[in-house]
């Protein structure tokens, strides 16, 4: 045993330690510490094999000790807490009611109008709050009672709310896209821009689907008519902070007039001012600050924990070996990509999206790049028809959309459970039935995004 430990090749060490790390995760060790712990043990093993245990251990301790501070103070990460703060203050700025009311007045006349209004108001709120599950919980309280009052089918109403929450992660501001960008070392602004069109398209697909379903089955939900243009325009001011947040992020990044952090901070400033205007007190602000602090520290701990593991992986050369294996599989790259996405679909059922991405990307991302033809490939020579940078952005959007899809996938799609949890009169089975058309639409959307990468890459290419 000791002989094996001292003579093992780095790659063997990489495989064994990664396997141990997965066992840690599976038995419930917090992901940040499972990865940091495995990374540290791996460094100890690799250095001990080279220079003896005593020296190897000290070198590993010193190396591991530099990572938390140096990685957590990476400048581009400073954007994350501003997005998180926007999320916690969005509710207090009165945005949920204002959005739903405005959407109802503007699109309520369509067949299934309240459903369409729910889709667009959840999309808007989810985008700024960045919290899919919480958005569904909030709108289960705001939108479902109104829909039921108007005689909407309860499965349909519940399905719209559960699905609407999943629109959180692509439309800016999106913390998860920032984290993806940091891990794969791509430009944060480019990723945020890339998410915009697929996010908006997803919302319109949902909206169109609601109209189609309501046209096919008149009992699902009637239109809500009778609003005057004056009433419509009166509903707009309350929703302006949302448009401001999205607008300022797009302008700062697209126009290059500010950094993403400055855009996030301006957004947070406006939302905070709006929340004060709506009567937010110190106790509420204090709670929002503490919750933001908690979520920030959770994400940062995961990031440095995973990056400690990544440091070890670099020494073990595991990502390169895995990439070579994936690229060498004798089948269509699309089939391999499909299997990888299916693996994400399964993993996403058991793990939070951020955890899932951080845990897997250090190994999966280089493999995807290799599958596309390597880090220097041009669009013309590549397997997926995108350059290596384009592939990084395109895969990020697909995988984030995939993570959102997991929230409405049976048997444990969290958004469906939360809607059923809030509405005691609607069973989980009802929500899953209601959400099925949206699930199918999402699968189709992902297929289209895979087949036509330019939907993702067009906007970033204009920057």
């Amino acid at each position: 045993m000791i002989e094996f430990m001292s003579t093992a090749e780095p790659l063997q060490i990489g495989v064994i330690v990664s396997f141990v790390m997965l066992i840690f995760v599976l038995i419930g060790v917090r992901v940040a510490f499972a990865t940091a712990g495995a990374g540290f043990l791996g460094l100890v093993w690799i250095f001990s094999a080279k220079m003896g245990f005593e020296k190897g251990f000290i070198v590993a301790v010193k190396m591991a000790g530099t990572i938390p501070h140096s990685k957590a103070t990476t400048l581009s990460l400073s954007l994350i807490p501003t997005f998180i703060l926007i999320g916690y203050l969005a509710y207090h700025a009165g945005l949920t009611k204002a959005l739903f009311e405005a959407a109802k007045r503007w699109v309520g006349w369509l067949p299934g109008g309240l459903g369409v209004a729910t889709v667009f108001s959840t999309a808007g709120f989810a985008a700024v709050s960045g919290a899919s599950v919480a958005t569904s919980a909030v709108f289960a309280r705001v939108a479902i009672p109104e829909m039921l009052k108007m005689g909407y089918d309860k499965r349909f109403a519940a399905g719209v709310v559960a699905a609407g929450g999943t629109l959180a992660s692509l439309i800016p501001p999106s913390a998860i896209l920032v984290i993806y960008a940091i891990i794969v070392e791509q430009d944060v602004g480019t990723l945020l821009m890339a998410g915009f069109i697929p996010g908006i398209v997803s919302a319109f697909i949902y909206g169109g689907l609601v109209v189609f379903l309501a046209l096919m089955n008149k009992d699902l939900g009637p239109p809500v008519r009778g609003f005057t243009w004056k009433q419509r325009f009166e509903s707009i001011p309350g929703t302006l902070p949302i448009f401001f947040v999205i607008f300022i992020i797009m302008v700062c990044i697209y126009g290059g007039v500010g950094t993403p952090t400055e855009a996030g901070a301006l957004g947070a400033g406006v939302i905070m001012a709006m929340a004060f205007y709506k009567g937010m007190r110190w106790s509420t602000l204090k709670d929002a600050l503490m919750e933001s602090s908690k979520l920030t520290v959770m994400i940062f701990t995961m990031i440095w924990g995973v990056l400690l593991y990544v440091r070890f992986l670099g020494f073990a050369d595991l990502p390169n070996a895995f990439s070579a294996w994936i690229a060498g599989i004798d089948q269509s790259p699309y089939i391999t990509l499909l299997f990888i996405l299916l693996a994400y679909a399964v993993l996403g059922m058991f793990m939070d999206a951020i955890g899932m991405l951080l845990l897997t990307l250090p190994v999966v991302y280089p493999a995807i790049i290799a599958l596309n033809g390597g880090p220097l490939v041009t669009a013309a020579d590549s397997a997926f028809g995108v350059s290596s940078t384009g592939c990084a952005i395109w895969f990020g959007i697909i995988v984030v959309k995939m993570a959102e899809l997991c929230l409405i996938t049976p048997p444990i799609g969290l958004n469906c459970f939360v809607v059923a949890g809030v509405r005691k009169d609607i069973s989980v089975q009802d929500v899953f039935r209601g959400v099925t058309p949206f699930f199918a639409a999402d699968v189709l959307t992902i297929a289209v995004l895979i087949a036509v990468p330019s939907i993702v890459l067009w906007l970033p290419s204009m920057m």
Partner: protein
Amino acid sequence: MSSSIIREDSTRLSKFDQQLFKLESWFSLIGGITISMLVALAIANSLGRWLFNLPVTGYIDWVEQFMAVFAFIGIAYCQRLGGHIRMDILLSLMKGRALWVAEWASTLFMLLITAVLVYGSYFHFYRAFTNGDSSMDIGIPIWPAKLLVPVALSFLMLRLLLQLWAYSRAILLGSEQPVGVPFIEDAATQANREAESLGAASEYDKESQEQS
């Protein structure tokens, strides 16, 4: 705040837990205030640059200092509330002593790796302190930010020791709901609590009660 998921009673363990939680809450609040300071600083920097061509001097240096605060200071608070992500699919199948033994083992593992990181990050601080390292632009000393890492992780160690104590007690007494540690919640409860943290649930529940 979501402190309600942790059971409290009059035992010494619970009192110690509550005292430590008060301190951790203060730290977390400092983290939150630092986030709002970052927001204010970034707004001042962008508006200063756009309107007066006058950005904040040493903006990047200050951002990096702030980041060290909010990235670490609430780490024990987050652990106390069970906020660090994990996969609890196997744990949720366990009950009673088996569950507490599994929790105990995973807490011990966390404690060991945290101890190593306290030691390693102290070295990192000590090097910066003895070399007099300072930031690139306006020369702020870097060692205080680096010292924050071992300090925050030491508080996390304290929290983990307390949780080990709580799980040991639960194993010995065979208790169903031990004090001072977070419980695993089902999907709906977890999601509802998340919605409550957005401030939404309570208000709408109140409204619907009033309506009925």
